[in-house]
């Protein structure tokens, strides 16, 4: 089987990730930050190392700004639900994943907030203008994806960040598809809340993610409980990261994530992105030349896209295509990819799209084999 579903979760993982995760069963099996014995302390240090690794990858001011979560969705929910007050207005993009859309929509359904959807364009200036046009006096946050999980389109997050700073609006970026692929410096980009998946471009185990923010102490909590700190106090501590990390953390996942981040830092985001985009542009070019193949972006390239390509074969649904490719030995995802707004925009709500998402371990030979297989299905 050749794996092309890295936008859902990356596979394979670097060997060191499995080794580090296994250490939680063999060496670092105690509860970190709870007990006083040596194994607990050693485990806590390993968790800290992973936190520090993430902080350094994203140029944070201190490791306490990293909150370990179960996934990117979890991180987005902590930030949005912790921040929004009755009467607030939020702007999201028309490419959002349900990770952003659903928490915002849920709060709106409850009558707490209102939200607007900004249209995105190939021209970044038009996209920024679209966000600007939706700003109102009660706009408290812009929450947008860094890159579409369906079409790979990169949003102009730097310019949107500038807009947020100028208008004193909080800024959340969903970097599920870009963390570990594109260099992200939240401080210089003006990002207040950076939400990442640990199990995609950072090569950690599934069930890992992180919220990175210097504003964690200001958030209302959606989960309270034991933190191993201030234990006699009935109130949830303000101190970060404890405030947002109640309950026993996912040591196995975090240790693996730390190793995944170390892998990315060694390779560098730039090298990973260059490798993956070489494959993606070759793939896009081959698909574009095939009859019966429908693509959804007129262009695809470095700087404007991440290595995620959606397509369909005329006359069949995306799920039919991915099922046929599965039988031929290729793992792709079909359907809506939890991003109904993006499909509404591209008019693919009925058929979905077959999505090819490339990872660091894919090769040009993989791409050629996949294109051969798609060609055969299209010609049949």
């Amino acid at each position, binding site marked *: 089987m050749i794996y092309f579903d890295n936008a859902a979760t990356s596979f394979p993982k670097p060997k060191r990730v499995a080794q580090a995760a296994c250490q939680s069963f063999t060496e670092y099996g105690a509860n970190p930050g709870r007990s006083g014995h040596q194994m607990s302390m050693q485990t806590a*240090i390993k968790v800290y190392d992973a936190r520090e690794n993430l902080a350094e990858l994203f140029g944070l001011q201190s490791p*306490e700004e990293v909150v370990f979560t179960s996934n990117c969705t979890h991180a987005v929910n902590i930030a949005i639900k912790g921040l929004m007050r009755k009467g607030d207005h939020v702007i999201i993009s028309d490419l959002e994943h349900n990770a952003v859309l659903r928490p915002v929509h849920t709060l709106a359904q409850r009558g707490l907030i209102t939200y607007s959807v900004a249209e995105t364009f190939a021209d970044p200036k038009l996209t920024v203008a679209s966000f600007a046009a939706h700003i109102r006096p009660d706009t408290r946050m812009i929450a947008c994806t860094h890159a579409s999980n369906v079409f790979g389109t990169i949003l102009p997050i730097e310019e949107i960040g500038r807009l947020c700073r100028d208008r004193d609006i909080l800024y959340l970026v969903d970097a599920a598809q870009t963390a570990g692929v594109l260099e992200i410096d939240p401080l210089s980009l003006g990002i207040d809340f950076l939400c990442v998946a640990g199990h995609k471009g950072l090569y950690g185990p599934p069930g890992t993610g992180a919220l990175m923010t210097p504003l964690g102490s200001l958030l209302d909590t959606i989960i309270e409980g034991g933190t191993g700190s201030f234990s006699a106090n009935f109130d949830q501590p303000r101190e970060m990261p404890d405030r947002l990390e109640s309950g026993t953390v996912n040591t196995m996942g975090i240790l693996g994530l730390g190793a995944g981040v170390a892998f990315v830092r060694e390779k560098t985001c730039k090298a990973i992105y260059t490798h993956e985009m070489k494959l993606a542009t070759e793939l896009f070019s081959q698909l574009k030349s095939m009859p019966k193949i429908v693509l959804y972006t007129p262009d695809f390239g470095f700087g404007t896209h991440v290595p995620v390509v959606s397509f369909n074969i005329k006359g069949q649904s995306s799920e039919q295509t991915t099922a046929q490719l599965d039988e031929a030995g290729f793992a792709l995802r079909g359907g809506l990819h939890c991003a109904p707004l993006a499909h509404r925009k591209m008019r693919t709500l009925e058929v979905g799209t077959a999505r090819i998402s490339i990872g660091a371990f894919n090769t040009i030979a993989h791409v050629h084999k996949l294109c051969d297989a798609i060609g055969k299905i299209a010609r049949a």
Partner: protein
Amino acid sequence: MLLHSFFGAQPSAFIIRGEAMNGGTVLFNSITWAIRAQKLLNGQGIGSNIRKISKVGQSKGCAYGLDVKKDFSKALRILENSNIRIVDVIEA
């Protein structure tokens, strides 16, 4: 001897008799802060050991103590300059 006890103060608040200190324990409410402090001091050549302390003051509950046997005053100054959040300082 407990010198002070108020959460969130900076180390400078504790260096009343700092120059005379030889060893002592710096208290943190969170294991994350304790490890950060330990790593910071290690990088400056100051060894330390973290231990769990079950009760701090009248109501705060669990804390982590960083035992520093040598260069305690220097250690406190380093932590102060790095904005490390200290709960208490106990002189040896």
